């Protein structure tokens, strides 16, 4: 188990390094530079600014400075908001995005497992048909449409109830978190339901279930102890990469629901060519995703003993 974990962690670190390097190269091939937007354009001032930010050095030199700073955890200062350090921006806004994302994953996972199990139990009967229809909708309709519709329905509900019971936008209380994370998790929930369904149906035909039935175990015990546990495995495998999908989908939900998360800042930074913020956020997000995937793999290792013994 330990060797498995260490191997994955090492691979993760190498991947993060690769992400940082690739981001650096990508940023430096972008035409234009962060000083483009500044108003002071006399040559002298520009030269001074370049010197201050180290933009006058050669590419490889900048790379080394970037790397050494990054290893010390310093991502620099935002170009467009020059009184804020990138670290502060991340520290202020990432918890919001993380809460949103994790809540969405939670909803998606619970929902996916429950609905998937239900469709397998009531296979080809009415609950199955209804749920599969909703699942197909969930896979086909884009997330931003759901976000927009979600907000619209909140407005209508508030109108019906007379006052602003559920907040329509913003962040702060649990009420603010509820609908956005639900909307964010819908796509993944649909995917997981489908996966859970086919996985459950496969497991039902396995020999060990027949043995359990022959032994005389109660159906409930078979369901929870054998079917559910084995069927969850493919869902767990997919969950890691889905966290990436949820994080990227978070940008849209943050935009529509006016949530002060990191995604919104990232999109703004890209539009304004704010080097340091882009690089810092990319590397941070990349590292976060890599380690989330590793975490899920480790959990998978706990759940499925076959993996550990490789």
């Amino acid at each position: 188990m330990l060797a498995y974990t260490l191997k994955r962690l090492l691979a993760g670190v190498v991947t993060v390094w690769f992400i940082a390097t690739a981001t650096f190269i990508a940023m430096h091939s972008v035409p234009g530079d962060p000083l483009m937007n500044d108003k002071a354009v006399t040559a002298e001032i520009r030269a001074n600014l370049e010197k201050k930010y180290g933009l006058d050095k050669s590419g490889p030199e900048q790379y080394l400075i970037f790397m050494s700073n990054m290893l010390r955890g310093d991502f620099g200062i935002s170009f467009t908001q020059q009184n804020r350090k990138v670290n502060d921006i991340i520290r202020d806004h990432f918890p919001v995005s993380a809460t949103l994302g994790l809540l969405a994953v939670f909803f998606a996972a619970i929902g996916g497992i429950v609905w998937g199990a239900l469709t397998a139990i009531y296979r080809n009967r009415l609950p199955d048909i209804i749920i599969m229809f909703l699942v197909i909708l969930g896979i086909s309709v884009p997330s931003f449409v759901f976000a927009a519709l979600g907000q619209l329905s909140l407005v209508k509900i508030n109108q019906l109830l007379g006052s602003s019971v559920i907040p329509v936008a913003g962040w702060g209380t649990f009420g603010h978190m509820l609908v956005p994370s639900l909307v964010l998790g819908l796509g993944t929930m649909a995917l997981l339901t489908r996966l859970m369904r086919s996985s459950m149906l496969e497991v039902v035909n396995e020999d060990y279930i027949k043995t359990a039935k022959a032994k005389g175990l109660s159906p409930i015990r078979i369901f929870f102890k054998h079917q559910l546990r084995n069927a969850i495995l493919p869902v767990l495998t997919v969950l890691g990469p889905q966290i990436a999908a949820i994080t990227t989908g978070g940008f849209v939900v943050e935009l529509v629901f006016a949530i002060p998360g990191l995604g919104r800042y990232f999109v703004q930074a890209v539009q304004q060519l704010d080097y340091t913020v882009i690089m810092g956020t990319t590397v941070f997000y990349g590292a976060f995703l890599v380690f989330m995937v590793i975490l899920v793999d480790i959990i998978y290792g706990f759940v499925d003993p076959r993996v550990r013994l490789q």
Partner: protein
Amino acid sequence: MTDSTLLKTQLQAVSNLDFSPSDTVQSAEQISRPSLSYWQDAWIRLKKNTRAIVSLYIVIGLALFTLVGPILWQVDPALQDLNQLSQAPSLPKQAIFVEEHTRWEGIVLENFPAEPEAFLDVLPAPTNLRTAEAATTQAVRIVWDPVVGAGGYAVYRNQHLPESINDLGLPLGTKLAGNEVSYEDRLNIEGRDYYYSIVSTDGYDESDSYITLKVTPDLAITKTEALSRGLITEESIVANGETIDLEFHPFGTDYLGRDMLARLMEGARVSLFIGIVAPFLYVMFGIFYGGFAGYFGGNLDAILMRFADFVVALPFLLFMILFKIAFGIGPGESGVLPMLIALVLLGWPATARLVRGQVLQIRTQGYIEAARLLGAKDHYLIIRHIIPNTMGVILVTLTFAVPAAIFTEAFLSFIGMGVAPPTPSWGSMCNEGVKTMLSHPHELFFPALFISTTVLAFNLLGDGLTEALDSRMRSRE
């Protein structure tokens, strides 16, 4: 009946004829049905799957919509119909011909004081609010009876019936004399219901009572405008008051007056072009990469797969955006090509891995070894055995990659990182539609419907193909 009676009846029904030798000859080894190839069998299976066939029809319909549509519906998607902004889908609207607009003098009463002679505690509302002439979208002219003690009147316009003095709507203007009892409204008039309210003021405060009039202006068009928009020709003789059909917009127009149907067709071209070409390219590349890695195996395989893993680990969206900026978008370009390249560069590892897995699996199968023992060369094995067996996986991947690419393109266009305006794509149309979702839902509804239907059709088709092509992947029900 008892058992023995039953038996007897049955025995009596049997006659000698049943035991005469049959004269049909059937070879035991004869195949009674025509032999089917793998593809024919898959096609038969696919045809039995109703959902897949319906999706196939939808996909063909979309292809026709994209390719043939613009020939049948020849409206320029960039043309702005300023008379019909944000128009909901409807039958052709009619407009009345009017003269060019001239300023209205209005009505100023001569024998009524401009300033109030005495200030009243309670100022009543004006009475007899009416339109001076037929209201059109060119101008709405309203007149009312003066109020004794008024030093002026404030004019408001709302789009629904005002419920109270605080709900009068948009303040259009104020008349600053008690004897100016008319107003001409020319502010963004559309062909819908308006509720004009007048409140009298004594020059300092406004009164608390108001009078409301509902006005529904007719669509109006001048001769020069109609001429410039091609609705009439130079020689046509039209009189004022005659109606003419305006441009027909079956799906309505967007907030700039552009025909939705034409934009949807153009958007279909962009979205489907990216959605089909990009997956096609990266699946092709993935096949070569994965096939190569899988067939040769060993160290080469390990290195190639390690590199693919790195590309997978890159945060997809972030790099899509960075690629798009790196390729640079000039002011007139549409941004389709950079997005295509970015999608291809970031999407190939998934297919590569799938193909490699499939090739590895096939390599170990018994029939490969058997064919080799029988004297088959490498290229025969690849062409005759390995590639057809990977085709199933490849086709399915392709069919699922298309909706994923369409989604990604729609998503990027939605956040403004996709194709640049004015090039329409379904995603950017959704972006624009969301802004007016509450007042003009049709602007969001149609692009979203098209995206969802396309994605759904491809997904169901992919499901059907999976069941038809791969015995392992068929769902057991």
